[in-house]
């Protein structure tokens, strides 16, 4: 896409976050959407494009009273919203819509109006993974990590440090679910979930939502909010089955999506002021730092251990506290994007001083898919 041709002008999360037993999934979408419209002064009749995942875009559009000329139901897991941003930018440039609303809502914790998990017995996952007692992401997303540990020397202490550093960021965020400081020892003493992963190395399960509104850069200046311009975008997929991942120490989808986004943006890694990496589990920042090219192979854990990603470090990472400490409704990508927007607007609780370029990098499924969005606040 053309750099800075499209901007995020509206961005908001649900009014409440965490445990919301009195709201169904569709209402979480609507609450976030209404907050995003209020953020930038729009009404449903001003929106002509709708994108969402996990819920039908037809349902979201009808519920909100929108008649779209552009619809995107791309649903590839928690990074779907990165792909929606990318597709919306292309659609706006092509004239398919002028103003696109992207929504997310998920009753991950309370399961109000939510569907059921689990593959069909005749699907490939149902035939070749589920019979072995894989019980959701904690016991599947984690499977490649022992291989990474053996080949690249990652230690249990280094893996634990990812959670420790993110808790430092969460401590600065009043909306974070968990804010009390933790140590590597605390992490390694927390309950075993799926060896080598302990409780504090696994994401939260909460309720919430978020919404974004995009329009052309030329229209963006007429909005009350500070525009966040789309600078570069990428997406890719690898496999719906974690067991079929080509290389257990690196995500092909991350590498392809990240390179595409950097190439489009025309920036170097040193230009990046702020980074969000979807952290459903503690190994994801390690994989993504390497697959996006911020660290050489096998060096990301040491990079985090040395403090480079913590408050005051040279590459502030997951500054909302991440899926490990902020919130994780199931499809966390929307919250990574929200934090990038806050940082570039200068309104984040743990603000990175003078941040000009931010990246939100998402994962979908279990290394199944990926989306990368590079944003800037400079026209």
């Amino acid at each position: 896409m053309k750099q800075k041709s499209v901007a995020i002008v509206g961005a908001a999360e649900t009014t409440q976050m965490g445990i919301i037993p009195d709201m169904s999934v569709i209402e979480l979408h609507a609450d976030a959407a209404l907050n995003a419209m209020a953020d930038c002064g729009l009404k449903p009749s001003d929106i002509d494009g709708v994108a969402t995942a996990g819920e039908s875009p037809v349902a979201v559009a009808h519920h909100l009273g929108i008649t779209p000329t552009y619809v995107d139901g791309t649903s590839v897991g928690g990074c779907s919203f990165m792909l929606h941003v990318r597709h919306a930018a292309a659609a706006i440039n092509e004239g398919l819509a002028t103003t696109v609303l992207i929504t997310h809502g998920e009753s991950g914790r309370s399961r109000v109006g939510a569907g059921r998990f689990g593959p069909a017995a005749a699907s490939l996952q149902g035939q070749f993974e589920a019979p072995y007692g894989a019980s959701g992401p904690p016991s599947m997303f984690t499977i490649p990590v022992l291989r990474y540990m053996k080949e690249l020397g990652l230690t249990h202490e280094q893996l634990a440090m990812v959670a420790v550093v993110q808790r430092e960021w969460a401590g600065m965020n009043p909306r974070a679910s968990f804010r009390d400081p933790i140590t590597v020892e605390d992490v390694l003493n927390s309950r075993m979930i799926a060896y080598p992963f302990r409780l504090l190395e696994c994401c939260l399960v909460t309720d919430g939502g978020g919404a974004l509104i995009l329009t052309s850069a030329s229209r963006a200046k007429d909005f009350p909010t500070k525009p966040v311009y789309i600078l570069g975008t990428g997406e890719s997929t690898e496999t719906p089955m974690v067991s079929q991942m080509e290389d257990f120490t690196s995500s092909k989808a991350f590498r392809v999506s990240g390179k595409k986004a950097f190439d489009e943006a025309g920036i170097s890694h040193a230009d990046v002021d702020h980074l969000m990496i979807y952290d459903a589990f503690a190994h994801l920042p390690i994989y993504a730092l390497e697959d996006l090219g911020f660290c050489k192979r096998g060096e990301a854990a040491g990079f985090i251990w040395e403090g480079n990603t913590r408050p005051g470090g040279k590459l502030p990472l997951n500054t909302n506290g991440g899926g490990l400490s902020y919130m994780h409704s199931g499809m966390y990508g929307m919250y990574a994007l929200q934090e990038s927007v806050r940082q570039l607007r200068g309104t984040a609780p743990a603000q990175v001083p003078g941040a000009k370029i931010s990246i939100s990098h998402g994962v979908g499924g279990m290394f199944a898919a990926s989306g990368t969005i590079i944003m800037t606040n400079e026209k």
Partner: protein
Amino acid sequence: MADYRKPIPQPTPETQPFWDGTKAGELRLQRCDACSNVIFPPRPFCPRCASRSVSWFKATGKGKLWSYVINHRPAPGFEQEAPYAIAVVKLDEGPHMMTNIVDCPQTPEALQLDMAMEVVFQPVSETISLPKFRPAGA
């Protein structure tokens, strides 16, 4: 077997020969007749060269322990076994296969990556036997 409460695979026309194989005590994979690529999970074509000419063959049933977790939060039906390993074996023919490890303690000490594994077949219904793996020579 009547009280087996774990997920049971439901074969499709494309995967039926695989499950016929495990029932008969054979691990069957496919090989592309055009480029020799070994294919798993089953499909009636080659994802490397798009040839629709692929043939089933009997695999050695040998491989090595590639990676695993030891799951402490059992899936429905697995309550009696937790903690249990969910493993991926890298077959000698190339493909990765998810499985459980049998005839071996489910501990990090006993489960060493790259250890040699061999397939065994566990009947779970009248028609389905699951391929599982044990340390070679166990």
